[in-house]
């Protein structure tokens, strides 16, 4: 069972904001809304929501910038709401730290499913820990340390690392990872995986450009190796 999620919806268009707020509330979420990025950042500090649904096209600072500013301090999940489905939008959004994205006009049920999937990523499942080189994954505390120091991972990054670490040495395809981590159907966007792997590498690898831990398996996907 999942508890009631507390969402922050940042959306400038009033009709969309009202409609989505109503729809999400009916799905059983608690929702606060903001019309601009600045208001959204303020609400984030004041109310500490569990998850942010963020429109990309915002007056003032845009969604990507909001996303980057949130990521400087917080690791809470962010779902981008994008109307311009230009490739640039999606890629920039994923690079600025978003966990997932939905394209307008989104159905309330789809958005709800994405929100629940993101929320599940932070849930703990087992009570063991694993060590890969200097990285220690503590599945009980849901923490990852590198050389003893805590790593700040978003729930998505953590879930990706957990899924990979559960099958060390085994290559997982992007579509598999999309199902395991993002709970997307078979049409998942493989760029979500690529972007998340990049962010994860930046945090766990000694030299992110020549990864020793999360290896790319050409033609397949990714694999977690214990450095020998």
């Amino acid at each position, binding site marked *: 069972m999942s508890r009631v999620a507390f969402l922050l919806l940042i959306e400038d268009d009033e009709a969309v904001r*009202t409609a989505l707020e109503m729809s999400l509330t009916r799905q059983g979420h608690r929702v606060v809304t903001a019309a601009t990025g600045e208001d959204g950042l303020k609400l984030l500090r004041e109310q500490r929501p569990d998850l942010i649904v963020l429109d990309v096209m915002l007056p003032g600072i845009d969604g990507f910038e909001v996303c980057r500013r949130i990521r400087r301090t917080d690791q809470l999940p962010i779902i981008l709401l994008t109307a311009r489905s230009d490739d640039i939008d999606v890629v920039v959004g994923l690079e600025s730290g978003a966990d997932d994205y939905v394209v307008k*006009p989104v159905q309330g049920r789809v958005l709800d499913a994405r929100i629940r999937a993101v929320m599940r990523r932070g849930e703990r499942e087992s009570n063991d820990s694993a060590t890969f080189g200097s990285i220690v994954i503590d599945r009980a505390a849901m923490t990852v340390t590198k050389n003893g120091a805590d790593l700040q991972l978003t729930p998505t990054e953590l879930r990706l690392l957990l899924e990979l670490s559960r099958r060390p040495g085994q290559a997982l395809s992007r579509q598999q990872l999309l199902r395991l981590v993002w709970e997307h159907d078979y049409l998942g966007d493989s*760029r979500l995986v690529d972007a998340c792997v990049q962010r994860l590498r930046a945090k766990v690898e000694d030299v992110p*450009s020549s990864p020793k831990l999360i290896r790319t398996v050409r033609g397949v996907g990714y694999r977690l190796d214990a450095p020998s």
Partner: protein
Amino acid sequence: MSVAPEDPEDPGASRPGARPAQADAPREGRIRGWLRALLRLTSLRLRLVTVFALVALVAAVSVSGIAYWLNRDAVLTRAQNAALRDFRETLGEQASVLPEESSCGDYTGMAGAVARNTLDYQVVLRAEPAEGGRICTAESDPAVFAYAMVPDSLVEAVNDRRDGDGEAAYHLYWQRITVDGDPYLIGGTRVMGGGPTGYMYVSLAPERDDLNSLAWSLGIATALAVIGSVLLAQAAATMVLRPVQRLSDAAQRLGEGKLDTRLEVRGADELAELTRTFNRSVASLEQRVKDLSAREAASRRFVADMSHELRTPMTAITAMTEVLEDEVDNLDPMIAPAVQLVVSETRRLNDLVENLMEVTRFDAGTARMVLDEVDIADQVTACIDARAWLDAVELNADRGIIARLDPRRLDVILANLIGNALKHGGSPVSVTIREEAAAHGASTVLVEVADRGPGIPDEVLPHVFDRFYKASASRPRSDGSGLGLSIALENAHLHGGDISAHNAKDGGAVFTLRLPREPDLPERQPAGAESRPGGPAEGEPG
């Protein structure tokens, strides 16, 4: 704008095989082009040089020839006349001092006297001595000139008495002969009044030597003229061809897409005019290309803006229709059908807007691919499964046919083909997946979607992929947008594949999708850019 740019192992970054061969072909072509250009230029140069040289040669040879012949004539005639005149006068003088009854000895003396001259000729005299007897022959220097050397024809002419013309009975005749390779003049005449016949013999070697040296000079002059003309032609060719070469280089740069290529205009000749024309054409071409790309950029911007403008209200409406749909059971029975209608039409409008935007993106060339390695059979199963078509579709496919493609676009194609077959042909629809070896090692994935319906009328068959084309009579207004098959085809083209339609022998329409296993899209590597709407696939299952 890759999401995994710094990863050296990223599968997208490598496309083994085709590259080197592709790289070789243009280089080979370029070398051949250079050779051809060189040959063409060389031949033009060659032609110029040949023409110049020929003209110079003809001019020099004819001038030298005429000069030589005129000179030769003048020199020979002068030498000849001088010798003959002297001979005649001396002969006359000596004949007049000859005794009346002269003997052979007198003649010998006379021959010696005549031969004592500045012109260095030898003399032979023949006369019948007064005392009768044998004709005596007096030779000034028998070693040089003997009577035997005088040609018979000359002797005959000299002795030929000419009474017809009043002047004299005998004329002075001459002939040129060659002895041991040297030219000589032999002249002869008969002294009037029964005098002796005298012959003179003089060498023309000095004149010959003069003429030879003249010929040599003329020959050298001709050769110099030809060489000069060749050099001149080279210079002219270089002068003419350098601008041509510059134009050729500029045209090549232009072909490589450097539209800012301009040439400096030098001089005011035809080539300068050509250069000016070139510059003008390039400038207008550049302007045209600029306009076109501006228009293209505007159209791309329009697509993006339209997408945003349409989607924002659609988002609000879609979210609200869900609420309305959930509440439809609690509504007034009079109102409920209206709400139902709004909900279903909103969904159709949504699909139509998505399809229209997809089509616009294809037209604007902004459609992008997100490539991934997928198992075709899995994709087909998932597509059927997601739309609850499992009972209506017979799938003939082996797992393990892996292709590199955009899964969402494949889903759009499959959903449209299978959905169309179900709608118009009725179930069961059979889907067959095959692999087919294509040319040069690449292989193609074949997906055949066959229905059991009446098939497609022949007059409709060529139009099934047209936008908004609906076979009105046999196919009543469906809930499709009329864009589905067109979008499917565009998606197949984007992958470098194709879709064809035909009727099976036992009735029923068959749509065949062909996709290359490795799309050849170098500029779209790696899993880069894409437009990702919900997709024009015919809606969600529920």
